[in-house]
Each structure stands twice: as structure tokens, then as C-alpha cells.
């Protein structure tokens, strides 16, 4: 039977390869990882492929980093304001050690919360991993074909300069809304989601 339509450039490489996002990184510490190959998550199926892994923009860590820097410098003020002089010398030394131990714990906890609060977009679904504190975890997910509406907001000077914003994804599933907070390049994420929704619709029709 003759072919009705044969694409002319069937075997040729794609003329318009997808644009590489300037903020995309391949490092595990990046906030926007396009097609990560070395990451999997516990509920991921064998044939499911991660298209995008997002975290909060790195710049959102600045407030706690500044706080830590101030806390690290605080003991030097004791040279000018001898607030601990009423203590015996051994207690003063222990107070300083405990202070720096506290700083280490803040750094580690804040890093863990930033690192593991990820938003994953696969070719099948959108998954939001939330570790609100070290003791609370929630995982929210929605199938790509259940996505009804998606909007993003990017307000304020810092968000405009560093190109990050919040994305709201409304779904028809059990979870009415999934929020991606402070993710880099929200317009690119929306574009990618749109592509995946279109692919999913074509697959459903076939």
C-alpha cells in the first residue's frame, strides 16, 4: 500500500534543537536541571523519564547565608563588648564551641531543606516533594493529562533581575493545585509543560 504522506526530513537531524536554558545546569546543585540522567525518585516507573528537575532559585538562600555570616562574626564583637566575662574561662570556651555548632546545624538544615525541596516534571506527571522541616515530608503529584491551567507570577525587583517566579498548576485530579515556588525561568517551565501536555494529548488520541 503506498504511503499517503512521508516526511522528507525523516532521517535528518532536528533542524531546530531545543534552546538551552542559560540558567540550566548539569550539576546536582543547580536549580534548573534539564533532562537529568543520574536522578531517580522512589515512585518513578521504569519507562518514566524525568524531563525537568527544579528547585528554588539559589538566590533564595541569600537571607539565611547572610544570617550565618553575621552569626559567625558575632563572637568577634566580644573583644569590644565582653558580655561573657562573668563566666569562668572554661564556660566561655564551651559557649563559643556551642555557638559554632549551632551555626553548623543551621547551615546543614537550611541546605537540606533547599536541596530536597524539588519539583520534578516527568513525561507522565508533575511531582512536588516538600520537606517543610526535618520532620515533615509531603509528596504531591498530578498526571500531565490532568493539568487544566497553569500560570506564573514574577513580581519584584530581585525576581525580575534573577528571572525566577512562582508557578501555579491547576489540575482536575484529587489535588486541585500544585505550586512551584521561586523556580528559575518560569516561562520556560510553562513552555516545557505545554509541550508535554501536547505530546500526551497526541498519545491519548492514538
Amino acid at each position, binding site marked *: 500500500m503506498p504511503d499517503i504522506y512521508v516526511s522528507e526530513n525523516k532521517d535528518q537531524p532536528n533542524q531546530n534543537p531545543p534552546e538551552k536554558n542559560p540558567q540550566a545546569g548539569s550539576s546536582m546543585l543547580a536549580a534548573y536541571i534539564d533532562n537529568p540522567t543520574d536522578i531517580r*525518585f522512589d515512585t518513578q516507573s521504569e519507562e518514566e523519564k524525568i524531563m525537568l528537575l527544579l528547585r528554588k532559585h539559589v538566590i533564595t538562600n541569600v537571607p539565611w547565608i547572610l544570617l550565618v555570616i553575621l552569626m559567625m562574626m558575632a563572637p568577634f564583637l566580644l573583644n569590644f563588648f565582653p558580655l561573657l566575662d562573668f563566666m569562668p574561662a572554661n564556660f566561655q570556651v564551651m559557649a563559643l564551641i*556551642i555557638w559554632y555548632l549551632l551555626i553548623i546545624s543551621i547551615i546543614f538544615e537550611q541546605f*537540606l531543606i533547599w*536541596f530536597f525541596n524539588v519539583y520534578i516534571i516527568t513525561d507522565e506527571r508533575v511531582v512536588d516533594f516538600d520537606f517543610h522541616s526535618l520532620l515533615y515530608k509531603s509528596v504531591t503529584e498530578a498526571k500531565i493529562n490532568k493539568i487544566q491551567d497553569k500560570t506564573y507570577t514574577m513580581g519584584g525587583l530581585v525576581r525580575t533581575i534573577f528571572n525566577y517566579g512562582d508557578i501555579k498548576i491547576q489540575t482536575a485530579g484529587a489535588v486541585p493545585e500544585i505550586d512551584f515556588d521561586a523556580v528559575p525561568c518560569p516561562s520556560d517551565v510553562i513552555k516545557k509543560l505545554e509541550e508535554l501536555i501536547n505530546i500526551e494529548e497526541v498519545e491519548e488520541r492514538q
Partner: protein
Amino acid sequence: MNPDPFSIINAFPVWQVVKIMVLFLLLMYIVFAFVVLKQVNLMLSTIPVTKVPLRLVAVFHLILAISVFVLALLVL
């Protein structure tokens, strides 16, 4: 004859009490460091990341907490 109230206050072992409180707080910190280690394991089981040695850092954090407790026991 009434005893001098200031002598009672001066005889009170303030720094001994502070030492016990500090040791108790550091003991709580060891528990916290242990919880952090458990939580890191849970996070890594959810999203396995092998390139960043987070489990190693959590173990180091726990060892540091125990070391500071032992140091406090010796120094204070």
C-alpha cells in the same frame, strides 16, 4: 540567730547547675543530630542522590555533636 541569706546564695553551686543544663542541651543536640541523620536517609531514599555526600556529612555532624558533648564533660 538568723543565717545570712547571702551566704546561702553564695554557697549555691551555680556553675554546677549551668554545667548540668549545658550537658542536657548537648545531649538533646545529639538526639537532634541523630534525627537529622535518619531524615537524610529518608530524603535519600525518596530522591537518591549519589554525587553529593550528604550521608557522610550527616554522620560527621553526629560525630561532631558527640565530640562536643564529651569535650563539655571534660572541660566544664
